[in-house]
């Protein structure tokens, strides 16, 4: 039995509502934390603030229009989303994409991956409390985005991939731009690395925080760099290859402990590997048409269903496309990588501090556009 005086010092847990307007919830994500002092007792994530009903919209739109909707799912890596959808349609239609188009797609997707991971670096640094990483990473990302602008006409929301290829060939000065960009990016990534990676404070903040075991991660449906950080060598570019990835040489980095530090390191290495892919793809890119000749403007897809997944910078981005014939799909189910990664948050935040919860969320690298769809 407790003493009377002791009872008076009993504490109650505090509910802390974090988000949807909080600087480090990466958009409009809300979590309700139950905290005991600085320790997190329980966490309840709430999503849906960015739900636009993309799946429903897709059912009422032509295939041509849907590509522009897919841009807006994971808006940090639009090219990768477009790719998932166009591959799904191509598989249903049985279209062979011209090789040049495949190479262009791979170059764009990998550049997009670098841009996306730079965004992760920027936000992760800011979450850990450093202000300069944000600006460094954005400086590099800006260069990539101006290449995107030159190629597709838009810095984000490109709407560049088409069923059967890409809408337009690369601009004539693309080679020059890339020759300038790649060494700059290499230097920029190295600089980002120097600034943050070795920093003892940063290591103390990230190491051992928010760890998850490989078995748990797979069970939760975690994917992408987050899963690889647990030591699982799973990359859809290798295990279920699409486009021209089988012909390209690259390594898959993997961590060991599945904590924030490993997730960070895997992404830093992935940027370098993506640069390798881009270099190879530029060297091997053949000349030729960029869109399959049989594709018309109004795409009619035969009856059938297909599930396609691609390795989005955040992981396994899946599209389940059902067609009943005609120019509009019957059902499009989008499996967002961040959607499944975010499910693990409850598990990751056990026994963490309030300050950790921001870092863990940052290390998952979610994009709410893809979570809420």
């Amino acid at each position, binding site marked *: 039995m407790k003493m009377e005086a002791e009872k008076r010092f009993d504490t109650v847990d*505090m509910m802390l509502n974090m988000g949807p307007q909080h600087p480090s919830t990466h958009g409009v994500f809300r979590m309700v934390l139950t905290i005991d002092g600085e320790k997190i007792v329980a966490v309840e994530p709430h999503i849906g603030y960015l739900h636009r009903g993309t799946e429903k919209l897709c059912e009422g739109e032509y295939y041509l229009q849907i590509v522009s909707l897919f841009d807006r799912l994971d808006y940090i890596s639009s090219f990768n989303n477009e790719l998932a959808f166009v591959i799904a349609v191509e598989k249903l239609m049985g279209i062979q994409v011209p090789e040049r188009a495949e190479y262009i797609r791979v170059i764009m997707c990998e550049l997009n991956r670098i841009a996306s991971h730079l965004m992760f670096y920027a936000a992760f640094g800011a979450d850990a409390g450093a202000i300069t990483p944000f600006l460094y990473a954005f400086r590099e990302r800006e260069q990539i985005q101006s290449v995107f602008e030159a190629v597709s006409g838009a810095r984000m929301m490109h709407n560049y991939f088409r069923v059967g290829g890409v809408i337009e060939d690369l601009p004539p000065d693309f080679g020059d731009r890339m020759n300038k960009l790649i060494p700059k990016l290499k230097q920029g990534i190295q600089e980002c690395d120097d600034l943050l990676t070795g*920093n003892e404070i940063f290591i103390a903040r990230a190491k051992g925080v928010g760890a998850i075991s490989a078995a748990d991660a797979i069970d939760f449906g975690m994917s992408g760099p987050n899963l690889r950080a647990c030591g699982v060598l799973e990359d859809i570019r290798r295990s279920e290859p699409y486009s021209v990835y089988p012909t390209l040489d690259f390594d898959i*980095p993997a961590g060991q402990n599945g904590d924030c530090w490993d997730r960070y390191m895997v992404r830093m290495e992935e940027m370098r590997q993506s640069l390798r892919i881009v270099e190879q793809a530029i060297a091997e890119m053949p000349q030729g048409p960029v869109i399959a000749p049989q594709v018309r403007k109004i795409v009619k897809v035969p009856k059938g269903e297909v599930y396609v997944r691609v390795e989005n910078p955040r992981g396994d981005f899946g599209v389940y496309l059902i067609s009943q014939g005609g120019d509009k799909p019957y059902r499009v189910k989008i499996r967002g990588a961040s959607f499944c990664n975010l499910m693990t948050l409850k598990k990751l935040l056990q026994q963490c501090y309030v300050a950790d919860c921001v870092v863990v969320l940052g290390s998952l690298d979610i994009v709410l556009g893809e979570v809420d769809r």
Partner: protein
Amino acid sequence: MTGELLLSALGVVGMLLFLTVTTFALVWIERKFLGHIQMRLGPMRTGYHGIMQPVADALKLLFKEDFIPGSSDRLIFWLAPLAVFVPAFLIWVSIPFTKELVIRNLDMGIFYIVAVSVVSIIGLVMAGWGSANKYALLGGARAAAQLISYELPLIMVILSVVMLSQSLDLKTIVEKQAVIPYVLLQPLGFLIFLFASLAEVGRTPFDIPQAESEVVGGPFVEYSGIRWSIFFLAEYVNTFAVGVLGALLFLGGWNWPLLPPIIWILVKSYFLVLVIFWMRATFPRLRIDQLMSLAWKVLLPLAFLNILIVGAHQFYRWPAWSLSLISLVVVLAVGYRLRWRRIAGTSRLGLSLATERRLANDRTP
């Protein structure tokens, strides 16, 4: 009597003006400095390279709506800025800029400064409590824990300086450094002072109470306009105080040749402040438990060790170089230990070449 009072009043007014101008200068310097480190320009619109930006900011803050949250504890909410602001300015009464330029030099000047500056903790806790906001409350609690913990190593390291100079009078402390500034004698002491005082003023990497990404401004989250700017002013005044105190205690104050003393003290203080800004631009923030263990497990034992070394040095009358040598050895040892821990604690990235892995379709079930 009246003349003396008038002179003091004049000094106080002068000091207030000086501190306000200094704050403006610091704000501008910080923004430009951060901007250029981050490869951007910083403020450019107001005046030459945005030199009038702090004035514009101040005007904006003055004319903002004075907002008090409905459920706040009004009296505490109202008092908190004052409780932070007053001690921040009070300490300047006894800080000498040169031998002559001081409002009221006290025999126990450094004691007075330490004693008064502690009071501002209460202001932060009041702000956290009075705002009736959970983030503010968390920030206030953090501030209390952090400031009290770092008070100890700070005082201990100041004590070792006092032991060396055999005086609590800042003027005497500076005069004792006429030949060798204490930073050469005790690099360890200087580093402890720097870290502890950074934590005292809540600057990166110890800006945990304000932590923008976690508790969104901490105790100040509900403050706006003029009240917020009072906190802001106090923060910059305190930062500058760290610079000046560091210059007085460790860098030899106004004591170097060629330039007039007032220039030297300003150069040294601004140099220290720039170092603080530089750290802000580079470092992430510690977590609250790491911050605590740094204070109690690293800085405080080191501060005691420092006192021990200085005490032994004074007692046995060792030569000056031996003190700096011992101090330097300790610094290097601590640095090495941190480095060693970094290597041991960092997992080597298991890079695996997955190129030859058998692909899904090749598998016969």
